């Protein structure tokens, strides 16, 4: 797969080239490509003078990173405690049905990735679904269909 790795040098410029910058650099790469391409991991190891094994270890430890391409839009179902007791599992299953993928997967057209997240901190509005950085509160089984439809129509954010 082709990725515009030309963008990497600009990312490296943002931080001191020390091992301490590793997580911040990986976060920016993740943001740019929606995942961490293998080539980028190798380049990062060289640039920051960190063993590749350690880059890999950090990339797989933190939930924020993905080694596989993700969709243009990330739909995150909050499954924090409050959302859980207010029916987050049902919401998750509804979205899985509408998108025809399981949580953690990406649709074939690479438009959506469905994820569960431990808590987005909007507990008062539980259950909450976040489409990229837009939060939707008080989501119901019935409103899931509309949410997916709207997200499909919406511009790439």
């Amino acid at each position, binding site marked *: 797969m082709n990725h515009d790795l030309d963008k990497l040098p600009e990312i490296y410029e943002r931080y001191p080239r*020390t*091992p*301490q*910058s*590793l*997580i*911040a650099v*990986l*976060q920016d790469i993740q943001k740019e490509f929606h995942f961490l391409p293998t080539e980028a991991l190798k380049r990062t190891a060289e640039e920051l003078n*960190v063993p590749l094994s*350690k880059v890999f*270890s*950090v990339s797989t*430890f*933190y*939930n*924020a*990173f993905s080694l596989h391409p993700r969709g243009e839009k990330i739909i995150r179902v909050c*499954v*924090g*405690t*409050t959302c*859980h*007791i*207010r*029916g987050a*599992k*049902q919401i998750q*299953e*509804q979205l899985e*049905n509408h998108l025809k993928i399981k949580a953690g997967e990406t649709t074939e057209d690479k438009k959506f990735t469905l994820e569960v*997240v*431990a*808590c*987005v*901190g*909007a*507990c*008062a*509005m*539980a259950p*909450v679904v976040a489409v990229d*950085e837009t*939060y*939707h*509160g*008080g989501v*119901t*089984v*019935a409103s899931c269909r509309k949410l997916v439809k709207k997200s499909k129509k919406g511009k790439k954010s």
Partner: protein
Amino acid sequence: MRIETPQQLTRLRKDCLARFNRHPQKIHVCCGPGCLANGAQKVSDELKKVIKKKRLKGFSVDALKETGCHGFCEQGPLVVVEPAGTFYTRVKVKDVEEIIDKTIRRKEVLERLLFTDPQTGEKIENYRDIPFYARQQRIALRNIGQISQCDIDEYIAVDGYQALAKALKKMSPQDVIDEVTTSGLRGRGGAGFPAGRKWSTCARADDSPHYVICNGDEGDPGAFMDRAIMEGDPHSVIEGMIIAAYAVGAHEGYIYVREEYPLAVVNLQKAIEQAHEYGLLGDGILSSDFSFDVHVSRGGGAFVCGESSALMKSIAGEVGEPRAKYVRSVLKGLHDKPTVLNNVESYANVPVIIDKGGKWFSAIGTKKSTGAKAFSLVGKVRNTGLIEVPMGTTLREIIYDIGGGIQNDRPFKAVQTGGPSGGCLPESKLDLPVDFDTLTEAGSMMGSGGMIVLDDHTCVVDLAKYFLAFLVDESCGKCVPCREGLYQLYGLAVAISEGRGTEADLDKMEKLSDTIVISSLCGLGKSGPNPFLSTIRYFRDEYLAHIRDKKCPAGVCRELIRYEVDPQKCDGCMACITACAQNAITGKKKEVHTIDQDACDKCGACLAVCKRDAILVL
């Protein structure tokens, strides 16, 4: 512009205050996470549009403030007209024009947008009179909802950075530590360690440099107090950190913010820039010889990084694995140097303590737990939101007086505090005062302040299973008791919830829990069995119902329940047929529907959409 002297700061404060109050009326739009999720941004944009269009005398767009979380999230989006405190709830874009025309132009109150007291049925105009607010005492949350989210001038207008000036000019580092010690401030992150003692140990440590870290990794699901502070009043945290740095002799600090809070990162960074411009961060703060700078470090989405030693590893760009506790981070913390780590709310309390004195602070709350504590009051409670109450307030006062009781008047079952490290307290414990030691004694803990209210539709076995699943997922895997022990506990909880458990399993779980508590490496592992231990302590009967009777009394555990249509109530609206993903429900319009038990996967979607209560859980 650099502020060189405390006198300059005082003058600036006067200017800021004059500007802050130059409009006789102000509109505050709550842009906290709850209100934003309900469309507050659209309301605010519309307000700006209408204000510009109407060109009112003495009222410009500057009189509109997008504030942090005002607290009463349940009623959002919230719009408050100050100084009258007129409190409009559930405001929609279509209400905006009328608010401007009537409330701003003619000083009339729009009755229909006011809060109705569910007890008396009366409309309440001023939010300060609503029980939800009237019973609170806001210290850490003092400015949130009162000032724009990220404006240093407004922070200065409400006495911001005065405490820093006082500390730098009139107090020695030891004086600052003494004041914090006098205040009795205990760490708001959950463990409740006395801040003064921590600072004093760090200040005396020989090794250098010293670091100051703010833990903004609010990982407990169900808690959002720190988020509200970082987003809504970032300067209070930064000021608290500068004062701490001065006290312990640090010149560099970090705020570690969790990955899920992007707006907190943006607002903190903005606030840091503003503080730099004014010379409140950087070299020679307020012309003293004290220098301090602070960086924002974004987390990677790992619960374990809320643990202090794991957090410090993460800041250093490494995998966040905790280390053994006998190496104290206050002596060997970030980069193995002496480090003070406190959480967001603790730092937000510091400027007030310096300003009003440790004695003032210690007079609030209880003897051993001083001050007030912020909670996110959520779950099946009527008034969900962000609150701050004096320590020692009882659970009953919080849940019934402030929270307005249980949603839909259902029976109270338990309240969960302390996140995955805490536990559930039953009705018999409702009159316990909320403070660090009382909650721990009762088998739960204060934690960072998530308070999740449960009603009779919540199954405690399911809840314990939920927390154990969370912990299994988030365990860093470094030590065996946590990695393997919690996994086994989880497996047994699943078996019970599916009706496969035995009473011998309960004994096994209790023994295993003891082992995990004793032998885990870090606090998260040690407290991991708490959700099980506290529920088995207070709700053993419910576990036994799953084991002996193969029943889930709350109607939650899927393997032990079935759904049926009540033919008396079903009006054949077909809503459940549309919602059922398994196509398990059949029936024609206006005829009673039926559920095929073999096809039903018990997801509960039918129950959720039925408007006639015609779905029975058996």
